[in-house]
């Protein structure tokens, strides 16, 4: 087991390097960092431009890409990050701020969504074909088919625009994490701002996990070892918890780890609709201006995250399912 983990970790390093190099090339070819720098800073002196090229390692030619990548990587790892092209801001404080906002939103939404989704899935899988099964299953299907920006728009319209017309003031705010001009920390106010975005993300998570849990649990419930367990005379409750649920959760855990990309993808959309200053908005803003010094740390961070979670999925799968042999 330990050898398997170490070997996978060992392989993760070259994978990260290769993928981030490809991402680096894609970003440089796609957004043309120098052109976007000149577009934003139209009166930059030749010295400033040279400095920008030097600091970001934007060398020309095929060899320049490799050299530039390592130059960038060295600066990135030593904490010497180039400043953003717009207003020459330091990237790390903004990035950190966005990251914690996103962690708060996604953390709450994921915990809520997964727990509700899993319980619903178990709840309906115990009575397949019943009315509650078909209604929950259909509801989950509808939830999956509603794009996040549509549900965000509808929620905003209902709880902010029309609520304030009917009852004088809106129930939940529609944008940001605090009202404009707010100073300091206020838990209630913050949670109020989180309600709508969390709902939008959670709808998707609940829908996915309800369906998934239902499917895997149904499969397990129909398997031979369930019959064996029952025929041994174990109580129904114990059969369900010790035998069925434990086995049904194995594929769910794996999906949860791989799904991180999808959840973050939904977050980008949600954050943008609610003007929530998280990593998704950070990316879209940086992409919009073609801000190379902001884009690269973001892409690096995500690449590492995705590869890490894929690794986690493999390891947890191997660890949870004794049938898997580690070659």
């Amino acid at each position: 087991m330990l050898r398997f983990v170490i070997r996978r970790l060992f392989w993760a390093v070259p994978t990260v390097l290769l993928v981030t190099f490809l991402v680096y090339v894609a970003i440089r070819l796609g957004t043309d960092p120098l052109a976007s720098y000149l577009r934003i800073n139209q009166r930059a002196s030749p010295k400033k431009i040279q400095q920008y090229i030097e600091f970001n390692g934007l060398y020309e030619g095929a060899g320049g890409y490799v050299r530039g990548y390592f130059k960038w990587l060295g600066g990135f790892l030593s904490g010497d990050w180039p400043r953003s092209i717009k207003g020459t801001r330091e990237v790390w404080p903004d990035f950190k701020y966005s990251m914690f906002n996103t962690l708060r939103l996604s953390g709450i939404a994921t915990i809520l969504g997964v727990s509700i989704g899993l319980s619903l899935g178990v709840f309906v899988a115990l009575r397949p074909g019943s009315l509650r099964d078909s209604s929950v299953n259909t509801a989950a299907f509808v939830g999956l088919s509603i794009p996040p920006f549509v549900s965000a728009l509808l929620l905003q319209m209902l709880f902010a625009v029309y609520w304030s017309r009917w009852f004088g003031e809106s129930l939940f705010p529609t944008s940001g994490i605090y009202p404009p001009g707010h100073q300091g920390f206020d838990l209630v106010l913050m949670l109020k701002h989180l309600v709508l975005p969390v709902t939008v993300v959670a709808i998707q998570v609940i829908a996915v996990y309800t369906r998934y849990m239902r499917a895997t649990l149904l499969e397990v419930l129909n398997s031979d070892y369930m019959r064996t367990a029952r025929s041994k005379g174990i109580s129904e409750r114990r059969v369900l918890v010790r035998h069925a649920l434990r086995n049904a959760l194995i594929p769910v855990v794996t999906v949860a780890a791989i799904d991180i990309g999808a959840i973050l993808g939904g977050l980008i959309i949600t954050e943008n609709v609610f003007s929530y200053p998280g990593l998704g908005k950070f990316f879209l803003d940086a992409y919009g201006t073609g801000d190379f010094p902001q884009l690269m740390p973001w892409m690096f961070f995500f690449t590492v995250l995705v590869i890490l979670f894929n690794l986690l999925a493999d390891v947890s799968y191997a660890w949870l399912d004794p049938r898997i042999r580690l070659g």
Partner: protein
Amino acid sequence: MADVIQPQLTTDDDSEGLAATSISPGKLAFKRYLNHKGAVVSAVLLAVMVLFVILSPLTARYGVNESVFPAVKDGPRNDFLTPRSIAWFGTDDIGRDIYSRLIHGLRVSLVIGLAAAVFSTVVGVTVGSVAGLKGGLFDDILMRITDVFLAFPFLVALLVTRSLLVGVEWLEPIVGKPSSVRFVIVLFVIFGWMGVARLVRGQILSLKEREFVEAARALGATNFRIVAKHLLPNSIGPILVALTTAVAGAIVGEATLSFFGYGPQPGAGQTSLGLLVSSSKQALLPGFWWLVIFPCGLLVLVTLCINFIGDGLRDATDPKLDIGGH
């Protein structure tokens, strides 16, 4: 379900009993499809919507950019009208009928969805078959590429690829302008084929060791014939389901891109569902609810119908799903 395939045991004439029960796989799948009520309703609804689109000269009451009545100075205003008899779903900021624009927009969205899904399925089936049959290095490289692409958030990967395509000048005659419908279709094909390729590869890997493939090979069938005549027909179910979900995925994808301002701008004479939904952003705060509800509602209805049809097809073609369920 089981009674459909159970042979009727008649004592006097065995052959007659067998003849009565021999249902072709297609008919069996059709019967199973009819058992999924949501899928049947969705198919009817979608057919109605497609008819509305095809017959748009008859069903649309106004042209794409035609206002319900010409705006005259000091005359009655034609903008932001609530739903009424001259404009069933109300009008937008320059007095155009939302109902007619939804029909025109749905046409473009359906074209994008269908074209992206069909092309990406063709590419995916080809690549997946080669990878599954040949294996080796090609297979390894393909799987690693799809791993990376599928892991990234959809929008990020889409936007980065988009800017890559925009940057290359000599590609423009092939992929079209970044604001064209063709460009969006190309973009979705670049992403869409990978899921199908994985699926087909998996199917072929599990089928190619079976006896009937071995028998075909022993008879001297070429690789192409084995894939086309034996392997693909046996995995037509999952491919069809993937094709259906790809249509819905491309329609939602177009709407997402449009929502963030990176979508197609189908030109002065056209619009799309995505454009209509994204223009509802501005209608939200002033409270023009009809500009939000109708485009969003139609988008959800279309994706829901297509997804339900996919679900019904899955039930119809997957023999494992016979017990329990719907």
